[in-house]
C-alpha cells in the first residue's frame, strides 16, 4: 500500500520521455524553484533537437539564427570531428539569453536527464540571465532574436547584391576586431537602428530649419600663429570632437571610417552588436554555470527527498552531475584549467555553509553573512550583483582555498623557472583570492588597445595604442594580420604603438606601411 502511494507520487518512471512528462516535470520544478530558491525567471520555450542540430547550433556560437560565414563552417568541422571521434560529448542542453528563454533539449537524453537539464537551464541559467545586472544592463533579451533575424537576412541580401567575396572581406575584418568591439564602461547605444535613423532625420531637419546665412558673415577667428600651443589645441579639439581616445575600435571605425559604404558600416555594426551581446556571458562564466549547477543540484535533491524522483533516476542524475563538476588537479593529464561549473558550485555551497554553520574563521572573513541563516538571500543578491571577478574577490573563503589546495605560480617569460608565489596558508589566502579574481577580469587579461588620434584633414593616419601591462606584448604574426584588417576597414595607414603602462615609455611601433 505504502509503496503504491509512493509510486504514484513519482514524477516519472523509466527512461523514456514524452511531452506530457516533460511538461509535468517542468511545472513541478518551476514551482519548487520559485518557492524554495526564490527564483525569478523569463517564460520558457523548450525545443527538442537532434544531435546534428546541436552541432549546427554549436558552430553558430550557440545562436539559433546566425548569418553565414566560413569561420562557422570551420568550427562545425572541428566540433563534428571531436564528437564523432568521441573525444567530446555534446552538451545536453543549450540555453539562450532571450525572452522567452529558449532551452534546447537533446532528443537522446533520458527522462532523468531532461529533468536535470530543465532545472539547470530553464531555471538556473534563466534566473541568472533575467536578474544579473550585467545582462540587464547590456543585453536586450527581448530583442536579440529579431535582431539576429534581421542580421541574417541583411547579410544575405548584401551577399546577393555585392557578392560573397566583398561581404566576406568585411566580415573577416570585423571578426578580427570583435574583442575590441565592445563598450566596457558605458551603456551601448540602443539596439534598434530604427530609432537611430529617426534621430538622425530629426537632427538634419533641425539643422535645415535653423540654418542662418548670417553665421557665414562673421569675421574669421583671430590668427593664433604657428605656435606650439595652437597645434596642441587643434589636436585636443580634434580628439574631443571624435570622442578620443576610444577603446571600441569597431564602433570608431563604423562611425568614422572614410571608405566604408553604408552597407559595410551596417555589417560592422552587426558584428559589434553581437560581440556586445556576448560580453556579459564571458564575464560571468563561473557565476552563470555555478548558479545553474547549484539550482539543479538543490532542486533535484529536494525532489528526491520528497519522494518525487526514483532512486534509479537520482543515481543517473548524480552521476551526470559529478561528471560535470569534476575538477582534476593541475598535474592530472585531464587537467585543462579550472572548471567553472566546479568552482561556481563549490563557492555557492560554501556561501550556504557559511550562512548556516560558520566557523570562527568564517566569522572573521565574512562578518556580514556568517551565521545569518538565510543563505537564499545572500545567493540571490550575489547572483544579481556580481560578475566572476567581483564574486570571487568577495566570496572565495579560506576553507575553499584549502579544499581546492589552490596555489599561485609566478611566471616570468625570461626566467627559466616558475616560482610558487602563494599556497593555501594564512599568508596566501588573500593573495590567491585576488590573483584568481584578477584572472577572471576580462578587462585586465585582454590587451588594452585604443584609438588615440587621427588627423582627418591631414594624411588620415589612424593611431592605435596598446597599453602594455606586466610586459605582455602582442603576438606578432596575429597582430600584423589584424592590423591589416584594421587598415581594410579604415582605408588609410594605421599604426599601433606599444606603450608601457607603468612608465609610459614607447616599446615598439608597427605601421601598416611596413607590413
Amino acid at each position: 500500500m505504502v509503496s503504491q502511494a509512493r509510486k504514484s507520487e513519482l514524477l516519472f518512471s523509466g527512461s523514456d520521455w514524452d511531452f506530457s512528462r516533460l511538461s509535468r516535470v517542468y511545472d513541478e520544478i518551476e514551482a519548487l524553484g520559485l518557492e524554495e530558491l526564490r527564483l525569478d525567471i523569463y517564460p520558457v520555450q523548450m525545443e527538442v533537437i537532434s544531435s546534428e542540430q546541436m552541432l549546427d547550433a554549436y558552430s553558430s556560437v550557440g545562436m539559433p539564427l546566425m548569418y553565414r560565414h566560413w569561420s562557422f563552417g570551420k568550427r562545425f568541422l572541428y566540433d563534428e570531428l571531436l564528437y564523432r571521434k568521441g573525444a567530446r560529448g555534446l552538451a545536453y542542453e543549450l540555453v539562450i539569453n532571450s525572452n522567452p528563454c529558449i532551452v534546447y533539449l537533446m532528443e537522446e537524453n533520458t527522462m532523468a536527464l531532461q529533468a536535470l537539464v530543465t532545472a539547470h537551464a530553464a531555471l538556473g541559467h534563466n534566473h541568472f540571465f533575467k536578474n544579473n545586472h550585467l545582462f540587464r544592463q547590456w543585453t536586450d533579451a527581448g530583442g536579440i532574436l529579431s535582431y539576429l533575424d534581421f542580421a541574417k537576412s541583411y547579410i544575405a541580401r548584401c551577399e546577393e547584391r555585392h557578392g560573397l567575396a566583398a561581404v566576406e572581406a568585411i566580415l573577416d575584418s570585423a571578426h578580427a576586431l570583435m574583442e575590441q568591439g565592445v563598450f566596457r564602461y558605458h551603456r551601448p547605444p540602443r539596439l534598434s537602428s530604427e530609432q537611430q535613423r529617426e534621430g538622425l532625420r530629426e537632427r538634419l531637419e533641425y539643422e535645415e530649419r535653423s540654418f542662418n546665412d548670417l553665421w557665414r558673415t562673421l569675421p574669421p577667428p583671430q590668427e593664433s600663429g604657428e605656435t606650439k600651443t595652437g597645434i596642441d589645441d587643434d589636436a585636443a579639439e580634434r580628439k574631443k570632437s571624435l570622442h578620443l581616445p576610444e577603446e571600441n575600435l569597431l564602433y570608431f571605425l563604423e562611425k568614422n571610417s572614410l571608405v566604408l559604404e553604408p552597407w559595410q558600416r551596417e555589417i560592422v555594426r552587426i558584428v559589434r552588436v553581437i560581440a556586445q551581446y556576448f560580453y556579459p556571458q564571458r564575464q560571468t562564466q563561473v557565476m552563470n554555470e555555478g548558479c545553474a549547477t547549484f539550482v539543479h543540484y538543490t532542486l533535484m535533491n529536494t525532489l528526491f527527498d520528497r519522494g518525487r524522483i526514483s532512486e534509479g533516476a537520482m543515481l543517473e542524475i548524480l552521476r551526470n552531475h559529478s561528471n560535470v563538476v569534476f575538477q582534476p588537479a593541475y598535474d592530472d593529464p585531464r587537467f585543462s584549467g579550472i572548471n567553472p561549473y566546479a568552482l561556481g558550485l563549490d563557492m555557492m555551497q560554501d556561501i550556504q555553509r557559511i550562512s548556516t554553520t560558520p566557523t570562527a574563521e568564517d566569522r572573521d572573513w565574512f562578518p556580514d553573512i556568517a551565521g545569518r541563516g538565510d543563505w537564499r538571500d545572500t545567493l540571490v543578491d550575489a547572483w544579481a550583483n556580481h560578475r566572476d571577478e567581483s564574486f570571487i574577490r568577495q566570496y572565495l573563503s579560506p576553507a575553499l582555498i584549502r579544499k581546492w589546495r589552490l596555489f599561485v605560480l609566478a611566471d616570468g617569460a625570461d626566467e627559466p623557472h616558475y616560482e610558487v608565489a602563494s599556497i593555501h596558508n594564512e599568508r596566501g589566502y588573500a593573495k590567491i583570492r585576488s590573483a584568481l579574481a584578477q584572472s577572471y577580469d576580462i578587462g585586465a587579461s585582454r590587451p588594452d588597445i585604443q584609438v588615440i588620434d587621427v588627423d582627418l584633414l591631414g594624411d588620415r593616419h589612424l593611431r592605435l595604442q596598446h597599453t602594455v601591462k606586466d610586459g605582455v606584448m602582442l603576438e606578432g604574426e596575429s597582430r600584423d594580420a589584424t592590423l591589416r584588417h584594421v587598415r581594410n576597414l579604415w582605408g588609410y595607414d594605421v599604426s599601433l604603438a606599444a606603450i608601457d603602462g607603468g612608465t609610459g615609455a614607447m616599446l615598439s611601433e608597427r605601421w601598416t606601411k611596413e607590413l
Partner: protein
Amino acid sequence: MPIFIDRRLNPKDKSLGNRQRFLRRAREDLKRSVRDHVRTGRIADVDREHAVPMPRKGINEPTFGNDKETGRRQHILPGNRTFSPGDLIAKPGGGGGYGSAPGTTASEDDFRFVLSREEVLDLFFEDLELPDLVKLNLKQILSFKPRRAGFSASGAPTNINVGRTMRNSHGRRIALRRPKQAELDAIARQIAELEAKPASAAVSERIAALREAFERLERRRRRIAYVDPVDIRFNRFDPQPVPNASAVMFCLMDVSGSMGEREKDLAKRFFVLLHLFLTRRYERTEVVFIRHTHEAKEVDEHTFFYHTESGGTVVSTALEEMHRIIEERYPVAEWNIYAAQASDGDNFATDSERCIELLDRKIMRLCQYFAYVEIIDERESHIFGSTENGTSLWRAYNAVDGKWPNFQMRRIAAPADIYPVFRELFARQPDLRKSA
C-alpha cells in the same frame, strides 16, 4: 507550462552554407589535397568521398592576442600537494606551459575531414577546366526515368488522376443512389408552393410529409459523400532505368624510362576522366591496365602506375595484348570497348607501321573510342602546338586519325589540355541520352 517545440524534423543542413563558404575559402589547399589523392589513389576512387587534411592557408582568424613568450603573469592552479612558497619549478621544454589552451595546437595537424563526392569532383574538375555541361553529366548518378504505369489507390496528391477519380465517384453515387440536388430542389419547390396556399389540415399534413422526405434525402446526401477517399486514383509511375550495358576501359601506357613522375601524373588524370565518364554512362565498368616497354603485360593498377621498368619501346606489343584480351574476355556484342593510350611518343620507326595496321585492321573496328595522348614537356608545347610533324608515333597515328572518327589524339603539357581530347565524346552524350 512552458511552450514546447519539436524541432527534430526541421531541415538538417543548417550549416551547409557555412561549409560551402569554408570550402571556397580553402579552395587552393583542398585542390592540392584532391590532386594528391588522385595521384596516389586508385582511378575508381576519385568518384567517392575523400578525407582531406584541414587546410592551413587562409583559414586563420587573427585577433590581437597576448604573446605567451613575453611578460610576467600568474597561474592559479588547484591540487597543490608538495609546494611551499618560494619553490622553483623548471619550465617544461618547448614553451607552451600551463596557460596554453589544450587541443588547439597539437591536434590540428592530424585533423582530417570528409569531402563529399560532389565536392571532390568539383575540385577535380576545376583543375581540368571542364565545361559546366560536362561536369553536370559526370556528376549525375545513374538516372531512372519515371514511366506511366497505370493507376494506384495510393500516392502523392500531385499525382491524383481527376478523370479517373470522378468516374469512380460517379459510379459509386449511382450505385448507392445518392439523391441528386434536383430532387431536393423539386421537394423544396413543392413545400414553398404549399406554404403559399391558405392553411388547412390537409395542406399542413402534406407539408409535414414533404418536410420529412426532404430531411431523409438530405441525411442520405450527407452520409454518401460526393467524392469519397475510395474513389481517388493516382497516376502510377514506375522508375525505368535508362538502358545500360557494360563497358571496359583499356589503359595503355608506355612505362619505359622516359616517362617520369609528371608524365605519369598527367596520364593518370587522363585515365581518371575517361573512367568517370564511363561509370556515368554504363552500369558496369571494368578497367584493364596494360603497360609496355618492348613487351606488353597486363598488370594491376598499383604496378601500372608505380613500377618502372627499363627497356625499349615497342608500342605494337601493347596493341596486340589488348587485342588478345578482347578476344579472350570481352566479346564485342556484350561490351563497349574504350581505350586510352598515354605515351611520350617514342617508338621504333618500323613499329609505327605495324601499329597503324593493327589499329586499322583490328582494333578500331572493335572500339567505341580510342583516345591517344602524347605527353610533352611544357617547354615543347609551343613548338609542337599545331605542327603536324612530331614523334614517330604521332605521325603514324595521324593517318589513323583521318580515317576513323572515333579516334582522338592530342598533345598534353598541362592538366587543362586533357579535356579537349574527350570533347567529342562528351558532346555526343546528351544526344545519346535523349534517344535512349
